[in-house]
């Protein structure tokens, strides 16, 4: 089991009022699963993803990531977990504007303490995986939106994380480019990665293996999806399982 949450709660304190954002989440995600998380704004979707991504700690409950209890870690330890186990893909790409694609992808490895020669090698490999080996010297401003998001995906997977967390990765892209990004994510899943996709589009969620629906801080629905279409497309990207 990669992710195991038991009765996870999160309460925000606004002045003197306690605002519950998550009320007793029980969630299991296996390694090499492809899961979509859906829910309207205010459903606790973001809060849950922050906790899953180790950006935040739960107020109560237990969260095991890859067998490690990460419910009550210090800021430093959480950074360490993020560095080793989690790759983020954001809606707005969030690349360093002045750095080349290669430098952007190297960044997580710098914080992970990987020596520079090895760093370069891994970054080039990651960029190859997302089909950008001919753009490694380009800066984000010289790349299209789809290419930027692919750099961001390369940055997320360069540390070989246990979990790739994609928060509305197609939200800023047109539907054709968005579909390209979805295909890359499916391919990554096919290659053995665990991917969590946060989205509000049912069609995108349908391309994953399982959709978790949140409402008012609780898991409302969990449904397995027919995955054949996604699997078919993943094969065409040509990613090899690791």
């Amino acid at each position, binding site marked *: 089991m990669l992710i195991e949450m038991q009765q996870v709660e999160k309460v925000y304190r606004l002045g003197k009022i306690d605002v519950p954002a998550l009320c007793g989440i029980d969630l299991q995600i296996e390694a090499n699963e492809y899961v979509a998380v859906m829910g309207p704004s205010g459903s606790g979707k973001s809060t849950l993803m922050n906790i899953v991504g180790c950006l935040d700690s739960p107020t109560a409950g237990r969260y095991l990531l890859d067998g490690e209890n990460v419910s009550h870690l210090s800021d*430093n330890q959480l950074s360490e977990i993020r*560095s080793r186990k989690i*790759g983020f893909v954001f809606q707005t790409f969030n690349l*360093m504007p002045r*750095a080349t694609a290669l430098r952007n992808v190297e*960044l997580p490895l710098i*914080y992970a303490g990987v020596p520079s020669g090895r760093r370069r090698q891994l970054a080039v490999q990651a960029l190859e995986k997302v089909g950008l080996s001919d753009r490694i010297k380009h800066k984000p401003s010289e790349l299209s939106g789809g290419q930027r998001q692919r750099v961001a995906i390369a940055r997320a997977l360069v*540390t070989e994380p246990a979990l790739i967390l994609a928060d509305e990765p197609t939200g800023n892209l047109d539907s054709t480019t968005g579909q390209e990004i979805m295909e890359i994510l499916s391919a990554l899943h096919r290659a053995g990665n665990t991917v969590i996709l946060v989205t509000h589009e049912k069609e995108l969620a349908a391309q994953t293996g399982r959709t978790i629906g949140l409402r008012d801080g609780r898991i409302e629905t969990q449904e397995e999806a027919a995955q054949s279409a996604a699997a078919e497309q993943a094969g065409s990207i040509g990613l090899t399982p690791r």
Partner: protein
Amino acid sequence: MILGENILLALQSLRANPLRSFLTLVGIAVGIGAVLYVVVLGQITEKRIKQRLESLGSNVLLIRPGYSRMRGVRTGESVVNLKWSDAREIVSTSEVIAETVPTYTAPGVAQYKDQSWNTRITGTVPAYEAVNNDRPIEGHFFTQEETNQRARVCVLGATVHEKLFGNASPIGEPLTIKSKRYTVVGLLGAKGESWWNPDDQIFIPLTTAQERLFGVDHLSTILAQMRSSRDYDEALFDIETILRRNHRLQADQDNDFRVRRQDLYLATVQETTKEIANFVILIALVSLMVGGIGIANVMLVSVTERIREIGVRRAIGAKKIHVLLQFLIEAMVLGLLGGVLGLAAGLVFIRVMTGEALILPWNWIGYSFAICAGIGVAAGLYPALRAANRNVIEALRYE
């Protein structure tokens, strides 16, 4: 994270806002440049004073007129009571005074061909050369005979030579002072500028100066050379006795002249120079502080601009310490670049102002860098801490 990565990152981010970075550097640069300039200038002055002290010896007394007084209030140095006869009597009467050199100095314009130069004309006697240890590098000092004849001959200081003749030899050339021709017989070596420029004067026989050029019978100074510096008290006593008698001073009247030991005087000048230097350094430190505040300000802006970036870095695995170091090193690089700029500007300024072969004050350059790095760290600490302690989730959401 490796230091080199952070320095690279810092340079990259400074390059992204070149004007802002440059303006921030200037504050530090001005401070460091000023400190360096003052320190080097102090060293140069000290060196020159030492040279003067060595050439002067410690056994020369300087006699000058006293201050004239109006009802007990000092009004200026206009007393005209020092006479050549005073100088003659001191050397002939006192057993501890070996030589006296009377001088009369007044401003004057010297002309050579179409060049003219406003300088000081000093009338003196041939003994000036030996007592001041100031020997011509070309030609000779005027002689006793020339003095007796009130000859129109002159010896040039190095500055006058340069202004009127450039590099050409002046010996035997005619010089015009107050529409009379003087023949240049000697050229003195450069002694260098300190609190005044001794090279910017023309020496002529005292007789010529007093009787033919200026029409005066008093002196500006008398240099008295003691046989030994141990004779100071006795020499002072002799000089006072002779001058008070010659000037017919009553027992209740103050001296109308002043006697100063040259070496002590120079020591005082040296002290004063140091005090001025310390004061300027203090001002420069204030400038450095202001520069530091500038850095802090720019770093705060820089942190605010990059909140989102901080969030992303933290999300992909940067620890607080990484973010802290990133901004701290950026501030430090800013400070150090300011230091480099200031040192370069200071050195160029020194070169232009003094024309001295550069003495590089390595210890001060070292201090400067330490100070700049220190200012950078001090100024960057608070902004860097703010950056590091940002809430990651809020930083990621920041627009």
